[in-house]
C-alpha cells in the first residue's frame, strides 16, 4: 500500500519561475492495485513517481509505504522495496555488461556486494528459463552485452530485472513510450503477466490511453496537479478510451492547446 498525504511540491522555489505543481495532493493505492495514470504534460504524473521513488522530495506532506514513513529516505534505500522501469531503455540495464551479468546484479539486489565471486555458471539454466518466458529468444544471448540489444529487448530485460527479487511497489514511468507500437504492445502484455504472477502493486504512468483503459484495475487522470478522473472496480471495467479522450479535450481547450 502506498499513500501520499497532503503533498506539496514546488519547483524553482523563491524564484520568478516558481511553479507549485502539487498542492495538498493526496493519493492512495491499495496492495495489489494496478493503477494507470494518464494526463497531459506538466500535469504532475512523473513528479508523482519521482516523489515516491525518492529522486524528488516534497516541500510538505508525508509519503507512506505500507504504513512506514519514507518521506526523508534516500532514493537508494527506498529502492530496496520499490522497483522502477524508466522511459529510457538504457537506464534499466548496464550496457557494458552481458545479459548474464545484468541478471546476476539484479538477483543480488538487497544482498551485500562483497569480495565473493559474482559469476555462478550454475545459474545459466535458471536464467535461460527465466528469459525464455519472454519469447524474445534472449535466452540464447546471455553472453551479449545489453548495449547491443534493441530498445524493446532492453526494456523487457529491465522489467525482468526489476521484478526478479521481491518488490512491494513497481513504478512504470512511461516505460513503453520509447518503443514502436508493436513492441510497446508486447512489453505491455509482458508487464501485465509479470505483475499478475507476482501480485505486485503497480503505478504506471502512460500516454497511451488504450493501455490505461485495458490494463490494471484503476485508472487515474491528472491535470495541473489534481486528479480529475479516478475510476476503479466496475467503473474502470466500463471505462472507454473515448471517455478519457473527452476529458482530455475539455482540459486541452481550457489550457488553450
Amino acid at each position, binding site marked *: 500500500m502506498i499513500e501520499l498525504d497532503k503533498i506539496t511540491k514546488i519547483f524553482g522555489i523563491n524564484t520568478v519561475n516558481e511553479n507549485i505543481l502539487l498542492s495538498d495532493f493526496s493519493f492512495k493505492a491499495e496492495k495489489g492495485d494496478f493503477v494507470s495514470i494518464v494526463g497531459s504534460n506538466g500535469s504532475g504524473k512523473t513528479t508523482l513517481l519521482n516523489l515516491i521513488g525518492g529522486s524528488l522530495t516534497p516541500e510538505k506532506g508525508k509519503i507512506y509505504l505500507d504504513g512506514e514513513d519514507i518521506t526523508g529516505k534516500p532514493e537508494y534505500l527506498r529502492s530496496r522495496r520499490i522497483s522502477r522501469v524508466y522511459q529510457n531503455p538504457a*537506464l534499466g540495464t548496464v550496457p557494458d555488461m552481458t545479459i548474464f551479468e545484468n541478471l*546476476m546484479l539484479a538477483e543480488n539486489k538487497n544482498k551485500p*556486494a562483497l569480495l565473493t565471486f*559474482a559469476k555462478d555458471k550454475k545459474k545459466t539454466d535458471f536464467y535461460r528459463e527465466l528469459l525464455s518466458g519472454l519469447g524474445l529468444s534472449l535466452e540464447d544471448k546471455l553472453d551479449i552485452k545489453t548495449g547491443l540489444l*534493441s530498445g524493446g529487448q532492453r526494456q523487457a530485460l529491465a522489467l525482468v530485472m526489476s521484478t526478479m527479487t521481491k518488490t512491494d511497489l513497481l513504478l512504470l514511468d512511461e516505460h513503453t513510450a520509447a518503443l514502436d507500437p508493436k*513492441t510497446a504492445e508486447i512489453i505491455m502484455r509482458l508487464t501485465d503477466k509479470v505483475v499478475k504472477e507476482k501480485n505486485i502493486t503497480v503505478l504506471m504512468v502512460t500516454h497511451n490511453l488504450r493501455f490505461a483503459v485495458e490494463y490494471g484495475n484503476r485508472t487515474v487522470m491528472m491535470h495541473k496537479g489534481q486528479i480529475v478522473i479516478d475510476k476503479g472496480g466496475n467503473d474502470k471495467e466500463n471505462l472507454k478510451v473515448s471517455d478519457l479522450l473527452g476529458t482530455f479535450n475539455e482540459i486541452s481547450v481550457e489550457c488553450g492547446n
Partner: protein
Amino acid sequence: MLFLNTTIDGLQLGLCFAVLALGLYISYSILDFPDLSVDGTFPLGGVVCTILLYRLGINPLLSLPITFVFGAAAGLLTGILHVRFKMSKLLAGIIMMTGLMSVTLALTSLLTDDGSPSVIFGFIQKNVKIPTLFSPEKGDLYITAVLLVITVICKVIIDLFFRTKLGYMIRATGSNETLVTSLGKNPGLYKIIGIAAAGGFTAVSGALYAQYTLNYDNTCGSGKVVLALASIIIGTAVFSGIRFLSDTSAVIFGAIIYSLCLNYIVLLDTNGIYTKLLNAVLFALILIFNGKISEFLGRKKGLKKTQSKQSIPQGFGGQQDD
C-alpha cells in the same frame, strides 16, 4: 648499442608505468572518472616508499602494499570530495593534486638529515645504497623479470577484483548509476572505493619508479595523467579487439609501447629542447589516429560490435513477424 639500451630502458619504464595505467584504467575507463590527482598520488607513493626503505628499513617488496594504502587514502579523499561534496570530477582531482604537491615535499624532510625538505633524494646516501627490488648489478634481465612479475600480479588482482560482486557493482556504477540506485545500493560508495583502489595502484607505480630510478624526485608526478591516459588509449585501440586479450593486458602493452616511443624521442632529440613538444605531438597523433589504428588492423571492438549487431535478429518486432 645505444638503441638496445634505450629499448630495454623503455621496456622497464613501461612496466613501471603499466601499474599506473592500470590504476587510471579503474578510475578512467571503468568509473569514467578522469582522476587528475594521479599527478600527486604518484610522487606520494614514491616518497612514502623511500621513507619506508631509508628510515624504517622495510623490505622493498613489503613497501609496495604499504604505499598502496597511502595512495588509497589519497584516492579516498578525492572520492569523498567528488561524491560527498559534489565537486566536479576534474576539480576534485585538481584540488587533491595541488594539495599533495606540498604534502610530498613536506614528507621529504623526513629523508634529509637536517630535516629540511629536498626536491631530489638519491638512493645512495653516504656511500650506502638503500636496498631496492632492483639491484642494478643483477642485470637487466633480472630487473625486467621482477617488474614483469609485479605488473602481472597487479593485473591479476584487478582482474579478479572485477569478477567479485563488489567489482560488478563498481563496473555497473561506471556504466549506469541509475541502475545501481535501483538495486538499493549507494553508487557514491562504489565510486569512492574504485577511486581509492585507483589511487593505491598509482602510488605503487610511484614506489616502483623511485626504486627503479634509485632516486626520488618531487616533480616526478608531472605529466603522469597524460602518460597513463595515452597508455590506456593506445592499449585499448590497438589490442582490445583481440579476443583472448583482456583490457588490463591491453593497457599494460599500451604503457610499454608509449614508454618506448618516449624513449626513442629522447634518442632523436639529443639536446632535449623539443622532447616535450615531440611528446605532445606523439600524444596528439595517437588521439587523431585512435580509431584508424584499429580500423587498419581490422579488429577493433567497435567493428566487432557492428558485426555482431547484424547477427542479432532485429529486435523482437522481427521475430514476431515470423
